[in-house]
C-alpha cells in the first residue's frame, strides 16, 4: 500500500527524529512510504489566525502533493485534523476542488489511528524500560477521536508501563500562536498540566503532537524538572529514543 507521509513543518524544523520514527513504523507495517519533497505546512497557523486566503492556498498545495496516494499519514493529530475536518470547510465554495479535497480528507489519518485501525500493526519495534503517562492533545482527541489508539499501541511496547494522569484530556495551553500572543495564560495552563504529569509519577509524558510537546517540555524545564522526558508516541513505538547531546555539529 502506497502511503504519503506528511511530515509536518514543526517536525521538519524541530524534531526530524519523529518523522523518521513514523517512517520506520509505516515501513514495519509493510507500507511503501513516499515523502513528497515539496511539502511545507498544512496551513493551520493561517487558518486559526483568520488568514483564510493563505490557508486556502496551502490547502490546495497539500491537495496537489498528496492527491495521488492511497493514504496520507500524519504524525500529528493537529495537522491530520486540519486536513480531515477543516479542509473540506475551507474549500467548500470551490466546486472544482471540493470533491477532491473530500476524498483526500477521507484518506488522511493520524499516525496511531492508521497503524492500529488501517494496517492493524501487530508488533512494534520499540522497547521502553519505565513508566509513561499519556497526554491527549486536543485536536487529535476531539476532532479525530484519538484516545484508545496510542494506548493500544503503547501496550505492545516491551517493558512499558502506562500510568494515567489526572485531566489527561485537558488542554496543555499551547494553541499555536495563542502561546505567543497570550504567553502568560498559556504558561499558566501548561503549569497545571505539568503538575498533573509530575503527580502521575511517570518518568516520561508521551503524546502525539510536537506543538504540545514543546510547550510541555518548555514549562517542565522552566519549573526545574530536568528529568521527566517528553516523547512523541512515534519515538516510543519505533524505539528511536533521543541520544544525549546530539546537535547540528555532531550530526550528519
Amino acid at each position, binding site marked *: 500500500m502506497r502511503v504519503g507521509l506528511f*511530515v509536518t513543518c514543526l517536525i521538519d524544523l524541530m524534531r526530524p527524529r519523529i518523522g523518521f520514527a513514523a517512517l520506520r513504523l509505516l515501513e514495519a507495517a509493510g507500507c511503501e512510504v513516499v515523502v513528497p519533497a515539496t511539502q511545507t505546512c498544512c496551513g493551520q497557523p493561517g487558518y486559526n489566525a*483568520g488568514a483564510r486566503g493563505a490557508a486556502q492556498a496551502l490547502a490546495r498545495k497539500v491537495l496537489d502533493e498528496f492527491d495521488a496516494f492511497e493514504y496520507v499519514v500524519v504524525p500529528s493529530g493537529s495537522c491530520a485534523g486540519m486536513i480531515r475536518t477543516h479542509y473540506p470547510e475551507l474549500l467548500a465554495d470551490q466546486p472544482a476542488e471540493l470533491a477532491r479535497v473530500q476524498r483526500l480528507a477521507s484518506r488522511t489519518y493520524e499516525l496511531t489511528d492508521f497503524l492500529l485501525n488501517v494496517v492493524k500493526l501487530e508488533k512494534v519495534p520499540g522497547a521502553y524500560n519505565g513508566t509513561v503517562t499519556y497526554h491527549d492533545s486536543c485536536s487529535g482527541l476531539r476532532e479525530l477521536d484519538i484516545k484508545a489508539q496510542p494506548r493500544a499501541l503503547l501496550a505492545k511496547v516491551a517493558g512499558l508501563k502506562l500510568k494515567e494522569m489526572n485531566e489527561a484530556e485537558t*488542554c496543555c495551553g499551547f494553541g499555536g500562536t495563542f502561546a505567543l500572543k497570550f504567553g502568560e495564560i498559556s504558561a499558566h495552563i501548561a503549569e497545571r498540566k505539568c503538575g498533573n504529569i509530575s503527580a502521575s509519577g511517570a518518568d516520561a509524558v508521551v503524546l502525539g503532537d510536537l506543538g504540545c510537546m514543546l510547550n510541555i517540555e518548555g514549562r517542565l524545564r*522552566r519549573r526545574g524538572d530536568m528529568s521527566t522526558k517528553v516523547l512523541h508516541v512515534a519515538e516510543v513505538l519505533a524505539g528511536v529514543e533521543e541520544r544525549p547531546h546530539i546537535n547540528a555539529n555532531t550530526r550528519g
Partner: protein
Amino acid sequence: MQVASMHFKSRAREKLVNRNLQNALNKLQGNFVRGRAQRVAEMDNFEAIRDAASAIRDRVLDRLDVYLEEFERNATARGAEVHWAETHEDVNRIVCELARRHGVRKAVKSKSMVTEECALNDALEAAGIEVLETDLGEYILQLAKEPPSHIVAPVVHKTRDEVSDLFEEKHGTPRKTDIAELTREARERLRGHFISADMGISGANFAIAETGSTLIVTNEGNGRMVTTLPRVHVAITGIEKILPTLEDVATLMRLLPSHGTGQSISNYISVTTGVKGEREHDGPEHFHVILFDGGRTSLVGTELQPMLRCIRCGACMNHCPVYQSVGGHAYGWVYPGPMGSVLTPAYVGLEKALDLPNAATMCNQCGVVCPVKIPLPDLMRKLREQQFARKLKPWTERAAFGAWCWTAQRPAIYAAAAAIGARLLALMGGRDRLIHSIPLAGGWTASRDMPAPQGVTFRELYRRQR
C-alpha cells in the same frame, strides 16, 4: 454595562496572580465540571437529547419572527403587555416609564444577565427608584459594587472571607463565617423588601410561544417571590430565548440544570403566565414582557447564527482552560468564556473586543460540552477572519502571515529558511539545549523555555539518507 474588553490582556495578568481567585476557580472546575459529567453519564440517550435540543433551537431561529409574534399574541391574550426593545436604552426607558406609570418606588430583581447588558440598575437608580438584587450572589455583588464574573455563579470570584467582611461592613452586624449563617443574614435583610417592593424584575430562561409564558430556572426561591409578590412584574428577555411549546421546554430542561450546575433538576422552575386571575390569591396585577434585541437580529442569517442557540448554561466557561485561568472579569463585559468571546464582539462591536476571539487555545472542550452543539471555536475563527479581512489585526501580524504564506508556497526558499532556522535555534539552545529567551517571542520564553531543535531539518536528513 461598560465594555472593558479591550483590556483583556492586562486584566488577565492581574487575575493569574490573584490567589483567592485561583482557589475559587479551582472549586468551580470541581463542582460544575464533575457534576455535569455525572449527570451526562446518568442519561442513557444523552446525544439524542442534545440533537433534539439543538434542532428545536435551530427551528426557532429559522422562524424567529413567527414565534415571537405567536408569543406576543398569546401573552397579550392572557393579560400581559408585550414591549419590543431594540437597544438597551430602549429597555431602560421602557422599565423607567413602567415604573412611573405604576407608581413604583422600589423594585426587587431576580438574576438576569440581560439586565446586566442594559445596566438597568443604574438607569433605575438614576430615575430615583430603589433596586435590590435578591439572588444571593447578585445581592453580594450589589453590596460590593462589582459585576458578576460568571453567568450562573456570579460571585464565584469571591471567597467566603471576603463575603464575611462585606456583610460585617455593610450590614453592621457581628462578623459571621458560617455560610448558612451568612445566607440567613442576607435572607432576613431581603424578606421585608419582597413585601414592600412595587415591582419585580426578572429575566427569562425561556419564553414559550404557545402559552405566552416566561420561565425562570432558579435554586434559591427568590425568583418565585420576585415574580409573584409585587403588584407589577416585568420580565426582560432576549428575543432568541423563545421556545415553541412547553414540550420543547421539557427537552431543554433535561440539559440546562445538568450543564449549568451539575444538578438533575433545579430547585425551582417558575412559569409565569398572564396576570393574577379574579379568584387567584397570588401573582402580579400587571405583567409586562420586554423582548430585547440588543444586536441579536444582526446575527440571524449570518455565519454566527448558531450562537443564538445558546441557553446560558455556562458549561463552556466551566470547561474552558482560559476561563479557568483568568476568571470572568478579565473578559470585560457581561458574558465571559467562549460564549462571551463570540457574543461580546457581536453585540458591542468587533473593534471593542479584539482580543476575545483570539484568547482561546481552540481546544474545543467548549464545543464538545455545549448542550446545544454550538461550534464555539469555529465561530471564534469566523470572528478572527472578520478581523483579518477588516484589517483589525496589527499590520505586523498580517505581514508576518503574508510572508509565511508566500514562503510556504515556495518549497526551495522554505527549505533554505527552515535549514537556517534549525541551525540558529540549535545554537541558541547552547549546552543544555534549552532556549531561555527568543527575540520577538517573549510571550513564549517569559515563563517557559523553548526546547532547542535537533539542528538539521527532516528534509535535509531524508535527502542524505535516500
